């Protein structure tokens, strides 16, 4: 089981801010592919040409990052603070 969080424009485009997945994909990349497979708007948001960043347990993580049961995974667009 993993917890997913969506922020900013992603949250608006997906129409939700969070969800719980009852399985745990092997990696961040696998999770992205799974989400992209849900059809519109997910396929647009997680399309290969979109810059969507991921954080695992609140630290930036690449696609090859291994996921573990209970992880929190955040997805968001490039940051614009400051």
């Amino acid at each position, binding site marked *: 089981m993993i917890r997913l969080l969506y*922020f*900013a424009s992603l949250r608006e485009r997906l129409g939700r801010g969070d969800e719980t997945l009852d399985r745990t994909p092997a990696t961040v990349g696998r999770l992205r592919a799974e989400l992209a497979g849900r059809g519109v708007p997910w396929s647009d948001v997680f399309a290969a040409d979109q810059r969507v960043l991921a954080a695992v347990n609140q*630290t930036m993580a690449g696609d090859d990052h291994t996921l573990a049961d209970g992880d929190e995974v955040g997805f968001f*667009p490039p940051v*614009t*603070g*400051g």
Partner: protein
Amino acid sequence: MDVEIRVQESPLDPLAEQAQVYAAGPQVGGVVSFVGLMRDINQGDRVRAMTLEHYPGMTEKALGAIVVEAGRRWQLDSVRIVHRVGEIRPQDPIVLVAVASAHRGEAFRACEFIIDYLKTRAPFWKREDMSDGQSRWVEARDSDDVAAASWADGSESPTTARGDARPGEKQ
């Protein structure tokens, strides 16, 4: 090294925050600070207000990591980062970064490093409410990536060109 990191919905008073840094002690020789203010124009359009969203928990963790990295590179007495979230208006302060050091060059370098990294690594997002009633998410800027990348791993000075000034581009 004294460290204070805060994310707040209430108005940010950059002057009161700096006063805390000046008071860090009689060994402090110089304080360098950066204050980012909301402008009323972005990409040629008038902006009425802005809403800042963040990723609670990760924000503090990311800012903490940036400060630890700055403390590894330079000799610092005190670092303070305060970032506003929620709705803000033109000319409101958005962020304060204040760094105290016995050496002014180190304070300058550390302060700029922190704001460059904050702009590319801390999970904040800005949504602009335009004067025509529309709203839009602010796009990340390539120049911020270039600025952050200029601080090569562990280096104490920018190691690549930063390409600072692009006419018409913000901050």
